[in-house]
């Protein structure tokens, strides 16, 4: 039995279709990442899987419990790490964990010992009596994650847990996610950071405009773009330059160039051999008198996959 099985989820808000027929499955003990830009429908999908939103169509089974027919069963096996710090900041770390433990059904000595255990794991045993409001952001994140783990859930959802935090804290969180998998938990992880999805995930689902546009392992997804390299060119004042459109046409006309995309002051090309094509690209720019301030040649990655599938860069 798959731990998470999502079948054709639909959700609309007024005229906007936020999620359109999303389906995927997650095996036990796996890390599955939902990757996509802001507004792709990741959070709406997670909200339905948490039973916060009722789907307009479709269903999902979480350890055999239907989100439509057995939401309490779903919630009993679930831990959720929301994107924002969802804690009571005027309570202490211990009080927060104790309260949330009670909400997850823990009581008495079992609760007390579990709270102590979790405080040790997240390294805040000596700050247990301090109010969360006094903690720096990284510590709050740790408590935020710890709350979701207090009741030892089988499945844990993590909704963009590394947004807006420093690199060291991000590293800690990513290490914790891997540790959760090692402990046998199934992790559903949403992010718009390609590197996180690549590093953590057993399987990745790429979403855009409410649809699952690709799903598979990293290797399987990268194969979508074949062996194409990605060249990223940073140019100055391109959008106001009269020769910009001609330059893009000339670039598309170069042999080996499969796709050219312009976003703000960055031109992204999918090419057969990036290093070989660079001189020709610079020549085109010189002819049009356009200054290239930076050029990067990148091997196939999820960014390329997204670009290939949607025609847009993954990052907004």
């Amino acid at each position, binding site marked *: 039995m798959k731990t998470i099985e999502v079948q054709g989820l639909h959700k609309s808000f007024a005229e906007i279709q936020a999620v359109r027929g999303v389906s995927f499955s997650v095996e036990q003990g796996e890390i599955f990442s939902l990757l996509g830009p802001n507004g792709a429908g990741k959070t709406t999908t997670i909200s339905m899987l948490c039973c916060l939103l009722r789907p307009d169509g479709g269903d999902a089974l979480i350890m055999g419990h239907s989100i439509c027919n057995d939401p309490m069963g779903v919630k*009993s096996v679930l831990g959720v790490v929301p994107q924002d710090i969802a804690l009571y900041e005027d*309570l202490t770390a211990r009080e927060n964990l104790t309260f949330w433990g009670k909400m997850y059904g823990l009581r008495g000595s079992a609760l007390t010992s579990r709270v102590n255990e979790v405080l040790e794991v997240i390294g805040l045993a000596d700050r247990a009596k301090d109010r969360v409001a006094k903690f720096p952001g990284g510590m709050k994140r740790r408590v935020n994650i710890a709350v979701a783990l207090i009741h030892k859930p089988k499945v844990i959802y993590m909704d963009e847990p590394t947004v807006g935090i420093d690199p060291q804290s991000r590293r800690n969180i990513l290490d914790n996610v891997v540790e959760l998998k090692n402990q046998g938990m199934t992790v559903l992880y949403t992010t718009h950071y390609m590197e996180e999805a690549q590093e953590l995930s057993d399987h990745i689902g790429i979403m855009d405009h409410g649809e699952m546009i690709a799903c598979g392992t990293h290797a399987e997804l990268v194969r979508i773009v074949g062996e194409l390299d990605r060249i990223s060119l940073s140019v100055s004042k391109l959008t106001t330059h009269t020769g910009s459109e001609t330059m893009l046409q000339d670039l598309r006309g170069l042999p080996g160039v499969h796709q050219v995309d312009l976003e703000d002051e960055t031109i992204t090309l999918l090419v057969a051999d990036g290093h070989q094509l660079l001189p020709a690209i610079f020549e085109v720019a010189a002819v049009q008198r356009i200054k290239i301030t930076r050029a990067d040649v990148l091997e196939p990655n999820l960014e390329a996959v997204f670009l290939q599938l949607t025609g847009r860069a993954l990052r907004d």
Partner: protein
Amino acid sequence: MLRVFDIALKDLHQLMRDRTTFLFLLIMPILFTLLFGYANGAFRGSLNDPRLPVGFLDQDSTWLSRSLHDQLAASEVLRLQSRLWISENDLENQVAKDKLAAAIIIPAGYSHALLRGEAARLVLIGDTGTTVGRSIESEALTAIIHVENAARTALILEQVAGERTAFDFIFSKALTAWKNPPIRVVETTSAAIPEQNGGINALTHTSPGMMLQFAIASLLTSAQVIVHERKSGSLRRLLTTSTNRWQILFGHFTAILVLNFVQFLTLILFAQIFLNVNYLRAPGATLLVAFSAALCVAALGLLIGILAKNEEQAILFSLVLMFALSGIGGAWMPLEVTGRAFQAFGHLSPIAWAMDGFKNVTLRGMGIESAWLPSLALLCYAILFFTLAAFRFSKAEERL
């Protein structure tokens, strides 16, 4: 059910850590009760002596007149004020200027006439056409009757016993016997007696008025807890656990209920002990009204917390409702002094019903039967506010 108490306990922890809570729950109502009470004439004379001030002039200066003075001084209705070198004219002037409710003068020769079996009359200066005047007259007559009958009894027995010392003993015994009459009136007021103006009754109005007003004002902290829970995402997180919406609603409701009920009990005890407002004349009635009012205020607090989109709105809604409901409901000024139309309008505010309930006990001396209607009205308001809150909460869930 346990989760309801867990959520309530969590809310109470948060509220107890906010100093504003104590400010609005206890400090402000006490200060405003004293301030408004003073402004309305309380604390004139003894803070602890709400009896009617009555001037006293003893022109007889005998042991009998002093006995009569002692009887009157022990009265629970009037408070004697006697000063040296005060004249009859002075007393008349003070009564006319309302500085005294009345004055009693024992004329010279009163005792002599009494002991000789002749008609002995006191002088009462006051308006016996008013309730106050009649109360004082009645109390004075009672004291006079006790003293005169004791004197006559002693006279009769002295004639029988034939020794002087027996008179004092018998007189004293006879007078003492009046302290345990065969019939004792427990309640001396009724709803038929119009509310008396004056400093004595000021605190019986301002005490419940300010208590109720600041119960609503204190909702700004309770409501902010609910608002902040929603804004921080904690409510959304709560809904991902096995906790359902009714547990969350009742949890928050219970916290506000406990807070406000404890506030009421504390302020009632304070007023009972220090301000001589007799809430505990009918403790069952007072508790029933207090609990019903706490239910109503708690439901209102829940509604404010759910309606407000941010902390500023929670404060605004709480304060606006505080002013509106208190002003209309008679927390500042008795509705009884307004016209019938405004009294009817004022009873759209739950404050008016709560004021009725408390004042039925403290001012009108009524019992538990007077608390049922106000409590029922408050309960209806509580149900209305809670239903609106629950409906709005279910609509807001989709937007989380």
